[in-house]
């Protein structure tokens, strides 16, 4: 089929006009009709529009924020059709900044009156043994509970929904919900045999009273525990120092 050589500068490369006139090989349907000037013009406009939208989405969804100009153009002209397609994204996969936000988060729920040592009454999500992308989704959910507290529109909404959804599983309508995260040690500390810690990132009490779900945020606790082996303990103990 007269493939060109690799790369645009290769000696055997054909121009677009030449390539359009290439014969087809045996066993193929007739040559595809080349796009007309009008078709190419329309498609070029659509492509240019999408590429502008792509750049604005990358610039406008960055974790660093965006200018009012970029935000307004993107929101008014591009978001209406790029959001439904799940294309209005920044693609800013940072992987890690080494901050507590980047640590592995998990959820811990138990009946409010159950003692902290009652591991049988405690539900941990992702459950031990759950791995891969399924566990990653639970970790994202746990992290979203923490991140959502910084947004006045979302504050408390997700924790209340999560706890309410687990009332039946835990057999109680008064729950303690905590988001914990396993903070890795500094490399220097690890090389000296030190281990990471488990930190409480968010805590609240969620209960149903007279059919209404109430969320009572608990004050932040400087609660950490040494990380034992490779598994975070379910019930971190208060910091001793």
């Amino acid at each position, binding site marked *: 089929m007269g493939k*060109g050589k*690799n*790369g*645009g*500068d290769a000696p055997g*490369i054909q*121009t*677009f006009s030449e390539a*359009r006139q290439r014969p087809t090989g045996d066993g193929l349907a*007739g*040559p*595809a009709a*080349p*796009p007309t000037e009008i078709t190419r013009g329309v*498609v*070029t406009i659509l*492509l240019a529009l999408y590429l502008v939208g*792509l750049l604005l989405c*990358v610039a406008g969804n960055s974790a660093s924020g965006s200018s009012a100009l970029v935000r307004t153009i993107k*929101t008014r002209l591009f978001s209406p*059709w790029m*959001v*439904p*397609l*799940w*294309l209005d994204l920044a*693609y800013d*996969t*940072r*992987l*890690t*900044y*080494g901050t507590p936000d*980047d*640590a*592995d988060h998990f959820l811990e729920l138990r009946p409010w009156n159950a003692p902290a040592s009652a591991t049988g009454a405690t539900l941990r999500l992702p459950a031990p043994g759950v791995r891969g*992308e*399924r*566990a*990653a*989704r*639970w*970790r*994202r*959910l746990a992290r979203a509970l923490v991140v*959502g507290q910084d947004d006045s*529109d979302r504050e408390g*909404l997700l924790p209340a*929904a*999560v706890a309410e*959804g*687990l009332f*039946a599983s835990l057999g109680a309508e008064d729950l303690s919900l905590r988001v914990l995260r*396993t903070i*890795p040690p500094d*490399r220097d500390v*690890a090389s000296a045999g030190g281990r*990471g810690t488990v930190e409480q990132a968010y805590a609240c009490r969620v209960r149903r009273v007279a059919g209404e779900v109430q969320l009572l945020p608990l004050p932040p606790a400087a609660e950490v525990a040494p990380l034992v082996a*490779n*598994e975070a303990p379910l019930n971190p103990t208060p910091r001793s120092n």
Partner: protein
Amino acid sequence: MNAPNSPPPDAATAIGEWWNRFWFLPAEALLLAKVRWLAGGLALLLWWSYGPDLVTWFGPQGLVSPEVSSQWRPAYGLSLWDATAAPAGIWTLYACGALMLLALTIGFGTPVTSVLAALFFASLLHRGPMLAGPADDVTALMLWCLAIGRSGDALSVDSFLAARAGRPAQPPAVRNRIALSLLRVHASVVAAAAVLAQLKGDVWWDGSAAWWLAARTNSRMVDLAPLLANAEYLTNLLTHGVTLFEIVFAAGVWIGPVRRSVAWAGLVAWPLIGLLAGEPFWGAAMAILALACLAEE
């Protein structure tokens, strides 16, 4: 009409030729079909990861209620799952989506199933936006690119049935070129956006990022922590290697003489980065984008 400051006609012609060749030179479906198999398979795996917790998240007493979901997603976000919270409805939609993705992967009814598969996939992500990760983002864009091309013309049930019916194979198509070129644009943009985001963090400058990735006890795929804890230079090398590769990849796919070498390197490096970062599906998705960069020009 040449204004005094306009580029010479030769430059304009060259740019026009490049644009036409990049977007409109008919391309065979074989490479796009390979992308379809891999991206479809990856989408099925990601789809599968929702299965065990589907009702726990989206059911009648779901943790991610429709109210939470609507508050979390941006304006204009829509989901087919908004229509039902009943387990039967949720499972029906889930099964339909799985069938569409399977049909896309094997290339059955591709012109229709490729669009529906992308629609179902985006819809599931919109139902629980806080559950979606970087692999979902890249997979979604690949599915939309596949919906543009004619990937079902090769390595597919469609092409098999056409051959059995005695119909000739489809010639190279402009739609395949547009799809492959869009995939290449996204490969570059996603890599560039990732490296820009990373370089805002100190750990990517002081060379410790690889340690923070390896030391995450729950999400890591391979335990390099014992190795890196006592090897500062190796940690630095891995960290800088990741950022350097991402920069080279984002730029290299546009440089003719090295484009295919960079793409081949991406097929190996992206999965390794994904393993190191505890995001193996993201690494796989980026490798599939790298594959699309091998397109002939």
